[in-house]
């Protein structure tokens, strides 16, 4: 009796071509952001004595998670026959916006600031792809499961830095202005047709209304932000 290899469940559930191509594009965008984050943590951990010992476990956790995200996304892309995405070469001086940044003594605060911005970016980047992934539920669920972990990461980093875990308005706070695009658009206080600033007039108002909902970023915006850090 001939045994016919059984196709993987991922292949069985692969959607028709146009949607499948979009799914692969979404996964590759997510992978690009995961590479950016992973590279930041990997370089920081490799710089001996750079990370404050009290916060070492945070960054080893973040690094381990991003490694797993890269693995998950790479597998999903491959299972859908998508083209591999190589890890870009990153430059964390951001083409001169952060001159001399090299994970060196005295630059720890800048590193944590970048980490926060990259995780807040991650939340928005995955969120921007969720609608495109609904045609492929296994991929959708992986993206959602990573998306909310990115939000956990962002919250932890913001709290490490003495900031609120949620984003108020489109405030950069102390994030440099060249990263304004990471926070632009977060200021919405009306969701759908519901004016939440008014609904919450006595319980936090517009600030709470903007904090309560994170906003998506489109692929072009995300790519442009990542490109600030690639050679």
């Amino acid at each position, binding site marked *: 009796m001939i045994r016919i290899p059984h196709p993987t469940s991922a292949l069985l559930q692969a959607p028709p071509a146009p949607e499948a191509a979009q799914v692969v594009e979404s996964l590759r965008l997510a992978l690009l952001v995961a590479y950016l984050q992973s590279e930041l943590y990997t370089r920081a951990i490799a710089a001996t004595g750079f990370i404050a010992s009290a916060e070492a476990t945070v960054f080893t956790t973040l690094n381990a998670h991003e490694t797993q995200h890269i693995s998950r996304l790479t597998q999903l892309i491959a299972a859908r026959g998508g083209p591999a995405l190589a890890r870009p070469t990153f430059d964390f001086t951001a083409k001169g916006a952060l001159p001399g940044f090299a994970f060196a003594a005295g630059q720890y605060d800048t590193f944590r600031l970048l980490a926060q911005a990259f995780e807040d970016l991650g939340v928005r980047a995955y969120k921007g792809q969720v609608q495109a992934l609904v045609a492929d539920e296994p991929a959708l669920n992986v993206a959602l499961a990573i998306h909310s972990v990115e939000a956990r990461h*962002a919250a932890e980093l913001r709290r490490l830095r003495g900031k609120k875990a949620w984003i108020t308005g489109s405030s950069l706070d102390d994030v440099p202005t060249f990263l304004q695009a990471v926070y632009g658009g977060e200021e919405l206080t009306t969701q759908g047709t519901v004016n939440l600033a008014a609904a919450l007039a006595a319980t936090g108002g517009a600030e709470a209304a903007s904090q309560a909902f994170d906003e998506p970023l489109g692929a072009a915006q995300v790519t442009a932000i990542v490109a600030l850090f690639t050679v």
Partner: protein
Amino acid sequence: MIDDKPAGTSSPIPIGNLDDWRSVASRRTFLRLVGLGGAIALLPSFVSACDSEATTAPTDGFAGSGDALVIDFAQGDVAILQYALVLEQVEADFYSRVVTGFGTSNITTAEQAILTDIRNHELAHREFLRGALGADGDFTITSTFRGVSFTDRAAVLGAARSLEDLGVAAYNGAVQYLTSPANVLSFAKIVSVEARHAATIRDLLEPRTFAPSATDDVFRPAKVAATVQTNLVDKLGFSNAPAAFTQGPNEGG
């Protein structure tokens, strides 16, 4: 009779007939409802809360002792939004109780600011869903936090952690049932804020435990409902619930 159930029994929470509830409810069962089974010796305040009305508000009803609240999944997205509205009402009620109790609790000033923000966010989620649902969102659940001592920081944060982690898994598992792209995006906008809450609460309870896994849970509505029921006087029920569910990376949802 106390502790008359064999150890390790994990029967469903008795729902419906109050006499049935009383007949099978052991102290251990009660504690399991608030997620603290096995910790009796270390948490005398919980035991007394179980035995007496003294430390809980008189309005704390028995879970599942009220009227049926049935969500009909044949309504499509409306049902999924109603399901989310149940969750958000429970969360909003919980944090409102927390904030109301600040005056007599040992929750720090810094934590009070955080918990007030979270209360406001849950109100925003609730009001958004109400607005989106219109007449279909015109229902009010009766929540119950029987056994949670709102004067005790650890008890409040422990219950909050459970609610937030469950909320994340619930939204993650509900998206696959939505058909409207706008609703898909709305759920994604909310779930990341729930995750920010979860990480924050976890950090307050035990620093560095903000993300227990590289991928969050993705839970089917029935699994979520079984836990949410412990905080609902209403008898939560589903009709025409979808049989199919696509698991997330952690499986077990």
